[in-house]
């Protein structure tokens, strides 16, 4: 079994995001980067399948040199090899997926994992687009997987329920929180990762289809108001919710 896991290099969840001077990108100075949390579930699931059924897992990341840090973490968790698809320029989800799909055509994986979304721009598109470019079935928001006899059974999270689906390989699976509990990279894993190669390939060219015009922060939150205490305050609270906040 050949498994590919697409990983992205994203600002830490604790980052206080500042908009860059061009008004269209985020200011990256002083920002800590991490392996996208949803991709961690993807990495873990790929490793679990490899541990059970054997094979090879490759991690693929499209972007700058800095993405190597994220690839190293994936290697330290136990991934066999890593590929950096190099491109210094900003890409939209379409162009990212296109670049990755072009590489995967040559790698020919049986199973492709992505995280449900990348927590930087939250487009939730890459998995579906890769599947489309490769003409493969895709399963999004997967919270449970079972692989046997060339078929993959998955549970997907849908509003208020789980949907059970089945697909044939090759296919694309987008991992959702709950799929597993990602392992910590062990110190031995980190040492071994130093010896594993990161292959660098120029990413296939692709035009972005979506142009970012600008970014704006939401308006500052207004301070809360204490209307009163106890039962006596309820009518006033209801009035304010109806007339001022207009939420009921």
């Amino acid at each position: 079994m050949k498994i590919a896991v697409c990983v992205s290099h994203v600002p830490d969840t604790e980052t206080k995001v500042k908009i860059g001077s061009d008004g269209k990108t985020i200011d990256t100075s002083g920002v800590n980067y991490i392996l996208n949390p949803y991709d961690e579930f993807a990495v873990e699931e790929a490793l679990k399948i490899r541990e059970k059924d054997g094979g090879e897992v490759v991690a693929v990341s499209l972007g700058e040199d800095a993405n190597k840090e994220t690839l190293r973490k994936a290697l330290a968790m136990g991934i066999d090899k890593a590929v950096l698809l190099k491109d210094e320029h900003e890409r939209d989800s379409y162009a990212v997926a296109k670049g990755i799909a072009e590489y995967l055509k040559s790698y020919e994986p049986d199973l492709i994992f992505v995280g449900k979304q990348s927590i930087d721009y939250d487009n939730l598109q890459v998995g579906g687009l890769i599947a489309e470019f490769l003409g493969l079935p895709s399963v999004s928001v997967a919270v449970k997987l079972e692989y046997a006899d060339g078929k993959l059974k998955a549970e997907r999270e849908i509003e208020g329920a789980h949907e059970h689906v089945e697909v044939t390989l090759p296919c694309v699976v987008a991992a959702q929180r709950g799929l597993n509990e990602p392992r910590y990279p062990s110190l031995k894993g980190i040492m071994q990762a130093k010896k594993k190669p990161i292959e660098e390939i120029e990413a296939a060219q692709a035009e972005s289809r979506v142009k970012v015009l600008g970014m704006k922060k939401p308006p500052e939150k207004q301070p809360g108001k204490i209307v009163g205490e106890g039962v006596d305050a309820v009518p006033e609270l209801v009035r304010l919710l109806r007339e001022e906040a207009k939420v009921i």
Partner: protein
Amino acid sequence: MAKFQGVDYFDLDDVLEDDEILVRNTVREFVEDKVIPIIEKHNRESTFPKELIPIIGELGLIGSTLPEKYGCAGMNNVAYGLVMQELERGDSGIRSFASVQGALVMYPIYTFGTEEQREHWLPKLASGEKIGCFGLTEPDYGSNPSGMKTRAEKKGDRYILNGAKMWITNGTIADVAVVWAKLDGEIRGFLVEKGTKGFSAPEMKGKHSLRASVTSELVLEDCEIPEENLLPESGGLKSPLMCLNQARYGIAWGVLGAAMACYHTALDYSQTRIQFDKPIGSFQLIQEKLTHMVTEITKGQLLCWKLGRMKDAGTLKHTQVSMAKRNNCYHALEIARMSREILGANGILDEYPVMRHAANLESVKTYEGTHEIHTLIIGQDVTGIAAFT
């Protein structure tokens, strides 16, 4: 409270390798997820969180500088130091467990042991399957272990051990004790296994410090061990002191973690606690404390970082380790106390980690050579005059 993101006022990340940073961040995450949520309960009940041992082993946090061939990670000393720092950010007891097992049990087996002893013990100790302890201190001999009373006597193909050790970390839960005893007047190291006749390790109770760590007595009454349990390359006081030097190195880093936890808590508290209509962080007296804390943490980090690079290069002097141990323990305790002050009455509650760290650091300042003993070690080094007696 804001998530702990380390203290790095002097951009030390800049001089760390990527894999060192990854090691640190991994252990930080482990401590955040698995240690901090359970530690106050263990501290209250005075129990060691044994449930963490398998995962500490799996992560490779025990004896991580020893070779891969024995199931260890083969990391450099800076990465090892960062592991100690992050573990002690959780609790000094957790760091003590890893320190003792790695630096005081695995290190002497690796350094003074036979290949057979290494192959038998090191992989199991590294994985946490077996636990070890280090018995040097005695009821009447703490700072001057050279006077120890514990004796070994050769009888046929066996050694007979008699004596008592005290203050031994992990003692009661240990599968193997590295016991230091005099054989024909010379200090040697012996491996005493749990369950050996004449050997017991009762736990010491009533500690106000390091409550989430097991501390024990070791009692040896005509305790017979096979002759192959001698660590053959050990000889003289120098041998246990070499072990202590390893552990002191880890402590110098470790206490920075405790200090960071306290500073982080106090800084956060100072920004949200309102008195006299202002956050207390806006008062000069509070700012002076915070400034002092972050400065001392930064100085301690610089000491440790250089210490680690020298250790890797093999140029480290034991007096330099003494300086870092002495300085960093002193200031970590001072920082813990200052944080306690900044938190006012809240500082005494176990809802916050500061009082636990402050209490723990009292032990850490004492074990592995007290503050005074390290003062004398450096004093002797700079003046050329020993002032111990």
